[in-house]
């Protein structure tokens, strides 16, 4: 037994899944940078359309030059060609394909009680992806996730320094209540209210306002409040307990095909996965559930590579303590003698 242990720990085979979390960070950063870049491109387009390079102020001219240098390899006529990518993660168009957040569709349908099919279809791809992969939007694309995770890193650091940080647990079913209340309120008021409290929509819009409109608006204040909520009350509290989009994605991804699973044979009960999981899930006891956003941080942190993606409609029930852990060994000895 001990020989086996040393064999697995001494010779570490390459475990590509471990790097998935890095890839996720790259994706998150790219999405966020795109959200920053697009409003600048919009400004550049308006300068091009105005045909007034000579009349631009110095900073405007600098922006013009930088954007021209960035886009020249890809476009011939910036005023029209750059319209290929527009919008935010809330609703955007990519080379003629319009994509919308399923929550936008839910909100719109509940506000107007009518189905506008061209719009409903724009959520088709996101819904399909969610049904197969679960809450991946939350973990891999959402521009708010990037900031919330950095915020959580800040929280850990503050905790280390000695500042008391809230780590309360609330009821995670609360977000479904928010989703339901949002639907009802959208119907009553006849306006898509989710847009005002859904962080990815707020962030995309606020960056656009800050760059190309009048500056940050009300949404920025709201977003800062959510950051404080996360920092002072609960870890990643907004995503876990309030976010209506998270609720919708959780419901859609309830029977997702790809999910992380603990290989009990190589688990050593170190519980690092539970500590790293910002959503407060319990990989150590095989409890991932519909809330898991496939962020794969637990895979990256697992010292014995006991966590991996599997294709399955359901989580396995608790498999008992990890076979490399002390508890399992004690139990084995107990039953052996």
């Amino acid at each position, binding site marked *: 037994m001990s020989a086996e242990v040393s064999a697995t720990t001494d010779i570490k085979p390459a475990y590509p899944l471990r790097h998935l979390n890095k890839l996720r960070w790259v994706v998150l950063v790219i999405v966020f940078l795109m959200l920053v870049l*697009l*409003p600048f491109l*919009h400004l550049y*387009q*308006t300068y091009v*359309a*105005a045909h007034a390079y000579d009349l631009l102020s110095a900073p405007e001219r600098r922006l013009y030059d930088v954007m021209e240098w960035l886009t020249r390899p890809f476009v011939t006529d910036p*005023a029209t060609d750059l*319209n290929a990518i*527009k*919008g*935010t993660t*809330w*609703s*955007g*168009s990519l080379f003629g394909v*319009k994509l*919308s957040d399923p929550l*936008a569709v839910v*909100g*719109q349908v509940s*506000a*107007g009680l*009518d189905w*506008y099919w*061209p*719009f409903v279809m*724009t959520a088709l791809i996101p819904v399909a992806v969610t049904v197969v992969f679960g809450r991946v939007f939350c973990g891999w694309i959402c521009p708010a996730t990037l900031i919330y995770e950095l915020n959580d890193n800040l929280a850990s650091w503050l905790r280390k320094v000695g500042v008391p940080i809230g780590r309360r647990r*609330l*009821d995670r079913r*609360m977000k479904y*209540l928010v989703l339901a*209340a949002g639907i*009802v*309120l959208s119907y*009553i*008021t*006849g*306006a*898509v*209210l989710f*847009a*005002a409290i859904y962080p990815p*929509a707020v962030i*995309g*819009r606020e960056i*656009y*306002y800050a760059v*190309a*409109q*009048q500056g940050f*608006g*009300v*949404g920025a204040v709201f977003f800062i409040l959510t950051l404080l909520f996360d920092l002072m009350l609960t870890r990643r509290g907004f995503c876990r307990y309030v976010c209506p989009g998270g609720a919708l994605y959780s419901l859609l991804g309830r029977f997702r095909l790809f999910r992380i699973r603990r290989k009990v044979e190589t688990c050593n009960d170190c519980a690092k996965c539970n500590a790293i999981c910002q959503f407060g899930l319990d990989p150590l006891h095989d409890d991932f559930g519909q809330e898991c956003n496939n962020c794969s941080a637990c895979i990256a942190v697992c010292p014995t590579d006991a966590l991996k993606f599997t294709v399955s409609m359901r989580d396995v029930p608790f498999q008992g303590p990890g076979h490399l852990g002390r508890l399992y060994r004690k139990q084995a000895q107990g039953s052996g003698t």
Partner: protein
Amino acid sequence: MKRRHFIKAIAGGALISLLPTTGMAARNQPGLRYLRPPGSLPESEFLQRCIHCGKCGEVCPNRTIKYFQYQNGLASMDTPYIIPREKACILCMKCGEVCPTGAIRRIERKARTIISEVRMGKARVDRSLCLSWQGKTCGVCYRACPLPDIAIRVGRLEQPHVLKDCVGCGLCERSCIQMPQAIRIIPAHEG
């Protein structure tokens, strides 16, 4: 605080917010006069459709489209508007192309379709302010109009007459040299 009490408090808050539904439409700036982008649905349907994504503003080449904060009530927060005196619509129709929900309808950029489909509002001349009507030949509104002799025509001394096909783009109001402007767009949702 117990979880039960917390949830009760949240539910209570939601219920309270249900009560003043008229509060959603309450405007902090009652005198505010604005247009919706060209091809927009009538106001209440527009609000039901608009998902506040901001794409119409992002394609607007003239930076005409701006977004409400809370001036016009919570229901129209982050919805697009146009104040023609500040920046008027050049009727490029790109906002309708990019709108995902059809809150701004897609309208072909041709004089015929624009005249028949677009109704942002209608221009009205204040003859006591208008220079031409006061005897000083001006005619700037007519020169600014993208649909001359269809939306507006001029008579003696360049006195403007608004015709029935005015779509309300606001370029006349934007260009009026009088202060305050002698020609204004009366928004479609006010009429």
